């Protein structure tokens, strides 16, 4: 447990405990203190650098050994890259958030969610066991749900949160199925249960040869593309912008949506490299890239512009992983890191603009450069990186993207065209979120803008400057981390060489030409949009307004109305109907096999009747018959009590004192409770019609016969005596008790009892809730 790798996952979770108290004391300055948690993680992980390509540090803690599940963790180039992004951007977002939310009384809760999410994300990228990974994976979905729906009083936020949860949750379930198949396949290929659950253990076998490969591939892929918002599951991401801006900056651009990318990258040495992988993953990525980049042009809300451009980048990353060559993987690593930095910065910029001016609508903004100089600086630098302009880190990423497309054989010219189209759109959208609000004429804004406080500027400026720094000096990144990350994705050690200027050779010049063409076309496109020369916006909005969102809405509506109809049918609200259905189902399901068993078997051993047994049985029978005939509710109730007490007596006769005691107590208390209920009903029973009485009699007789057959059949079964002998023998030596019944309840099978008392308590609370509901309805 003392391995620091495990401790760094626990740091954010530990911080959730103090977060509410800190938020109550410090208010808008909370972030500075709580940012310590990710800062500690960041500092620790930074000390692991440089990562040697092809190496990994692993640690495992036993969990459920019999199922091959353990808390196993692994740190290699890929994990560490993500760890640094999660903790580094996390620290800046933490600082940003308290200033952004200001005096919100729910600040403590917000930080609890955010820190829990961070812990889950750290666990996710470190996990080496498939089940461990799945647990953290689902935890990120849950935290994302809570964070998107943070403004839970807004219907829009609730719907967006549910959308994200349902889509990613569906993917999570498919992913679990894929993981389980992967574990089974791993074992069949000769791994031990523990090794088959381990991601690092999968290297020993070739899953691609296994019969389950296609099923595994499809299930895992669906899990990844729902999480990373790929077409056709992309629609939840723009909707998720309903969450507070720090959440968008952190979860929905830099980290969580990259979890699917992470998993694809993590599993590509084990599942990738096949034609199925290449075509499916590559095409999904390509379509998402085009959809996102074109849809971003139709948006005029800064956050939505950024959301759709995030889709485009996620698509690009998926496409690169689908191509899967060495060049493509290296490109993916650079693109991923560059995107995380500039997109988080741009979201913070959008948040600042929104916070200070009161609007994110582009056509109301303009000329903020002088009023918000630092925000403007960060925005423009980050947008340059996003546009892929030299000398930013994003430029290197885009150059590599074009090189990949030009050099890989099986990617045709159409992929180059698609990439250029997508990047032209990205350039235009980068200009939309930087030039539009900050340059030009002053806009008409709801609030009088001024610069945002330090906490809100710091993150954006730092991240955008890092984009510039990494672009000018890419060497530290490639030696410390980049090579190791690419090696982890490829499954073999490789070296990465990054540069702004590649010298004079045909490919490099062609790439440079494409880059310049992209920038020029992008600039031109922005000009067209800004001057409204062409109705690009409305056209694109109409084009992308139809799609899977409608399908989702229809499905959800269908489920709601279907559930409504089923509930109205089953839950008629009449107790008699419920009882009848329950009884009839019992008779129909259990009756026929019981009749068959009873007819075929030998006669039950009969020990003969004793006089007191006959008396008690006759008494019970008389009381039961009389209960059906009487009209007074109270008398009926008393008679039912008599039946129960007689049953208790029979238990005494057959030496089951524990049962008898409990039976009598239950009878007494039931009568008390029923009397209290009866108090509210008319004292004399109003008889139902002859027909329904006849029906009730038939149902009752059927139930009675079924139960009798059941008891008689059970009495005849030759039970294996070893079970009861075990309890009888072990009761005193192993559990120090002579009352075997009680020893079974509280010791041998205590887990069952714990479950039962939990249900019992919940049932009690349920009764209370129902009673209160009725009272509220009356008043």
């Amino acid at each position: 447990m003392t391995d620091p790798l495990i401790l760094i996952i626990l740091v954010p979770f530990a911080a959730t405990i103090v977060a509410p108290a800190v938020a109550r004391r410090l208010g808008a300055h909370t972030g500075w203190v709580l940012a310590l948690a990710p800062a500690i993680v960041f500092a620790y992980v930074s000390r692991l650098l440089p990562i040697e390509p092809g190496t990994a540090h692993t640690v495992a803690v036993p969990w459920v050994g019999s199922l091959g599940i353990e808390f196993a963790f692994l740190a290699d180039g890929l994990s560490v890259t993500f760890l640094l992004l999660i903790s580094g951007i996390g620290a800046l977002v933490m600082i940003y958030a308290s200033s952004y939310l200001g005096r919100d009384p729910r600040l403590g809760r917000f930080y609890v969610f955010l820190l829990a999410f961070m812990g889950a994300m750290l666990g996710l990228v470190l996990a080496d066991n498939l089940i461990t990974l799945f647990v953290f994976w689902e935890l990120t979905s849950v935290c994302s749900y809570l964070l998107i729906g943070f403004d839970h009083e807004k219907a829009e936020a609730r719907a967006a949160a549910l959308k994200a949860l349902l889509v990613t949750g569906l993917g999570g379930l498919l992913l679990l199925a894929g993981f389980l198949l992967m574990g089974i396949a791993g074992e069949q290929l000769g791994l031990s249960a523990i090794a088959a659950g381990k991601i690092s253990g999968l290297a020993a076998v070739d899953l691609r040869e296994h019969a389950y490969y296609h099923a595994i591939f499809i299930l895992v892929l669906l899990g990844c593309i729902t999480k990373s918002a790929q077409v056709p599951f992309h629609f939840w991401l723009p909707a998720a912008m309903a969450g507070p801006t720090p959440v968008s900056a952190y979860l929905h651009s830099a980290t969580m949506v990259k979890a699917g990318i992470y998993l694809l990258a993590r599993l590509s040495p084990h599942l990738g490299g096949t034609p199925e992988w290449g075509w499916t993953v590559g095409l999904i990525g390509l379509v998402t890239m085009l959809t996102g980049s074109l849809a971003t042009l139709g948006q005029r809300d800064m956050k939505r512009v950024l959301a759709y451009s995030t889709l485009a980048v996620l698509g690009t990353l998926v496409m690169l992983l689908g191509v899967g060559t060495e060049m493509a993987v290296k490109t993916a690593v650079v693109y991923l890191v560059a995107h995380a930095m500039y997109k988080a910065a741009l979201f913070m910029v959008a948040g600042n603009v929104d916070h200070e001016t009161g609007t994110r609508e582009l056509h109301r903004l303009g000329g903020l450069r002088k009023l918000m100089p630092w925000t403007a600086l960060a925005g423009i630098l980050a947008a340059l990186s996003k546009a892929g302009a030299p000398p930013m880190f994003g430029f290197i990423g885009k150059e590599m993207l074009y090189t990949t497309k030009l050099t890989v054989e099986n990617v045709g010219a159409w992929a180059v065209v698609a990439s250029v189209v997508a990047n032209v759109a990205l350039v235009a959208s980068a200009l939309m979120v930087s030039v539009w609000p900050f340059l030009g004429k002053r806009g008409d804004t709801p609030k009088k803008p001024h610069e945002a406080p330090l906490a809100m500027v710091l993150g954006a400026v730092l991240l955008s400057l890092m984009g510039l720094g990494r672009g000018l000096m890419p060497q530290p990144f490639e030696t410390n981390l980049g090579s190791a990350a690419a090696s982890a994705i490829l499954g073999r050690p490789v070296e990465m060489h990054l540069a702004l200027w590649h010298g004079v050779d045909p490919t490099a010049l062609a790439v440079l030409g494409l880059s310049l063409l992209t920038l020029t076309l992008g600039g031109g496109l922005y000009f067209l949009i800004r001057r409204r020369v062409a109705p690009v916006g409305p056209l694109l909005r109409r084009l992308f307004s139809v799609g899977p969102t409608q399908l989702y809405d229809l499905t959800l509506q269908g489920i709601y109305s279907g559930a409504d109809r089923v509930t109205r049918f089953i839950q008629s609200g009449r107790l008699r109907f419920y009882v009848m259905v329950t009884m009839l189902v019992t008779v129909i399901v259990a009756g026929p096999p019981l009749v068959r068993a009873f007819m075929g078997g030998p006669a039950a051993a009969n020990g003969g009747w004793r006089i007191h047994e006959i008396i008690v049985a006759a008494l019970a029978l008389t009381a039961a018959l009389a209960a059906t005939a009487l009209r007074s509710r109270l008398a009926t109730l008393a008679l039912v009590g008599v039946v129960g007490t007689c049953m208790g007596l029979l238990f005494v006769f057959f030496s089951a004192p524990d049962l008898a005691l409990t039976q009598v107590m239950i009878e007494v208390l039931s009568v008390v409770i029923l009397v209290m209920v009866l108090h509210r009903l008319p004292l004399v029973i109003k008889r139902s019609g002859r027909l329904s009485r006849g029906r009730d009699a038939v149902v009752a007789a059927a139930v009675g016969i079924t139960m009798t057959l059941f008891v008689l059949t059970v009495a005849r079964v030759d039970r294996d005596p070893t079970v009861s002998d075990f309890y009888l023998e072990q009761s005193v030596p192993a559990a120090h008790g002579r009352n075997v019944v009680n020893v079974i309840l509280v010791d041998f099978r205590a887990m069952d009892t714990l479950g039962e008392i939990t249900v019992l308590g919940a049932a009690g609370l349920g009764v209370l809730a129902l009673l209160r509901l009725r009272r509220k309805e009356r008043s």
Partner: protein
Amino acid sequence: MRDSLILRTTTRVIMPLLLLFSFFELLRGHNEPGGGFVGGLLAAGGLCLYMLAHGVDDARRVLRVDPRVLIGVGLLLALAAGLVPVFQGAPFLTGVWAENKVPGIGKVSTVLLFDVGVYLVVAGTTLLMVLSLAARDEEEDDPC
């Protein structure tokens, strides 16, 4: 029913006896008929009797704590009894027994603690149902 002087007087004596008897059942349950479940029912039965004679308010006053607290504490005790062996490296819910006998109770163990938890949950749930139903009868605003 509440006006019966005889019932009111006798329940004052019978209720403590029933409670005592329920403890007795709880403690002896490990070796003789009894146990936490029956004990809890008996305790609830005793208080029900008191409630029938004196009314819901008096019964609550005698109980002192909200029945919901009994449920919560009971569940926590049962859970704690299960966690004690975990800290000693044994599986969840393994019985851990003290070395020495406690006078009047006998050998103390996590199993007994677990049974106390069962006792409290059963008593709490039953009382919760009965008291809130009765409060509804008396048309009070808030049963708890």
